[in-house]
């Protein structure tokens, strides 16, 4: 451990610090961060229980009434005759459809990159890494033009197909198979007469469960929250996913749009409720996935 040795010489020249001050600093930092991360969430969960007036006048962290949540709910779903419901359904179709396609495409690809040999394999790997670190938003405009040329604008494919392209997922599967599936095992099975397809479907696929979960999580969350692409390629409100819908909701509230929003019942409690409903699927995933997420992220790392 050369690092330890280097470090030791460095340490011997130092004086030991006192114990209480760092403890206070550490506690204060953790507490401030906790407030910063949690306070907005608590506020958001409480806001729909109050009327627009109460949100302004009452203590920001007070609970209003269950009855008021019902009222906010009715106002929200009355907006454009239940547009909220349509948006949620659209989001489910877009994220779900591209999730299936992403998995169907990236698991075999990651497997082949890690465990088979073919000409162009390295090129494919390098392009994957480059597109992974490329700012995705810069490609949205050319993708729009491309979809336009193929007359796909306004169809669900204009969202699902680009969403299904997920180099990071391929990279994760590649790392996973590379570090957890011994090449010898495949060679042995090949000698026993397994076809290439059987190797993949009977040996590799059953082993891939953790990484499939990981790719599914990142892909679903990323696509559910994506805004830029659907905002460009879907012209009609009936086709919006819920993120684009939230944008429309915001721009039609009286508080942010005094002219067009006048007379609408969508105010702060309704907006807060809309946010909660819009992120609920992702929130549920987040609550149950933290542990799997870490073990999966570090799957390649814990080996060896």
């Amino acid at each position: 451990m050369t690092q330890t040795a280097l470090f030791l010489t460095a340490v011997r020249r130092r004086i030991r610090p006192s114990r209480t001050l760092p403890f206070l600093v550490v506690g204060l930092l953790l507490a401030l961060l906790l407030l910063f991360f949690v306070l907005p969430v608590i506020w958001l969960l409480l806001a729909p229980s109050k009327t627009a007036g109460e949100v302004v006048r009452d203590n920001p962290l007070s609970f209003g009434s269950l009855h008021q949540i019902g009222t906010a709910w009715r106002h929200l779903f009355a907006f454009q005759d239940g547009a909220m419901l349509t948006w949620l359904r659209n989001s489910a179709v877009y994220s779900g459809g591209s999730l299936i396609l992403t998995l169907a495409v990236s698991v075999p690809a990651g497997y082949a990159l890690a465990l088979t040999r073919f000409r162009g394999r390295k090129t494919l790997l390098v392009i994957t890494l480059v597109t992974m670190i490329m700012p995705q938003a810069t490609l949205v405009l050319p993708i729009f033009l491309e979809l336009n040329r193929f007359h796909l604008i306004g169809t669900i494919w204009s969202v699902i197909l680009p969403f299904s392209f997920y180099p990071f997922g391929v990279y994760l599967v590649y790392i996973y198979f590379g570090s957890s599936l011994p090449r010898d095992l495949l060679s042995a099975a090949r000698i026993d007469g397994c076809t290439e397809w059987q190797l993949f479907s009977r040996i590799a696929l059953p082993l891939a469960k953790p990484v499939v979960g990981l790719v599914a999580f990142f892909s679903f969350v990323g696509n559910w929250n994506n805004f830029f692409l659907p905002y460009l390629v879907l012209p009609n409100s009936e086709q919006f996913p819920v993120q684009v819908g939230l944008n429309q909701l915001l721009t039609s509230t009286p508080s942010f749009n005094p002219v067009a929003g006048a007379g609408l019942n969508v105010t702060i409690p309704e907006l807060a409720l809309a946010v909660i409903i819009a992120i609920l699927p992702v929130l549920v995933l987040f609550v149950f996935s933290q542990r799997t997420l870490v073990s999966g992220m570090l799957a390649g790392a814990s080996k060896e």
Partner: protein
Amino acid sequence: MTLLETERVIVAPSRRGTTPRREGRGRGGAGYFFVAGYALLLLAFGVFPTGYAFYLAFTNDRGQFTGLNQFVKVIQDYRFAPAFTHMLIYLVMWLVTLVVLVVLTAVILRSRVRPGTSALFRFLYYIPGALAGVASVLVWLFMLDPDVSPVSWLLTSMGLKTFAAVLAPGNLPLILMLIAFWTGAGGWMVVMYGALNNIPDEVLEAARMDGAGPWQTAWHIQIPMIRQWITYMTIMAFATGTQLFVEPQLLQTASLGRVSPTWSPNQLAYVYAFQQGDFNGAAAISVVLLAVGLLAAALLVARSNLFTLDEK
């Protein structure tokens, strides 16, 4: 052993032997079959759009080659310099805050807090990540509105008495940084904590035996050992940072138009394409952004041996 070192290990031995390989009868036919679907998507939504953006950036609307004219045009646009300056200020603030606070917090949670408490903290820090995108901006619009904010006393004490005062254009980088940190930092803290957890106990024990305090252990052992994860986070955060679109767009709406509609480069490209109908100019902006993003990533990758693919 980090993910990226593993990568090097996986790739290196696999190509070492030059002995004839029996796998994949017909020289990798199976490999082609398995990557076909992905390769198609990669061509359609990775390679082609990149090429198309370059093609548009170097031609005009009649398809004639125009050299660097499109770039000259957009760079001379009075909105170009501000948009890139805004992005730069935001990126510096965001990356510095992210790296410092995420690493510091992960180290503290790993070595100064009991495991149960640490797990709870990590979970609570990580939850806002579920509210990425439009949702996070909406939440922060309320947090920053002195009328409804739970911390309105803090805003008022800083002299920000009205929503309009908070949304002054000069405050935007800070606001966007807060939002990005709120949704993104928790997830990275979880990842960094996991990386720290992978450092063998013997290493830390050896340091302790030799008289190192927790801070010295962190600075001289733990942080150097997770360096590649920090680089990886920086690259990813940089890439997301250059994509600012919906956040300033919504703040622009909320400020009732006082914030510029071309605050970020992506917004400027959007205005070029869809309000001026100038796709070539928009593509030129995209290409500049792409070059900046790839250049920064390449610098970090080269300096840190990240994603090493070469075999010895």
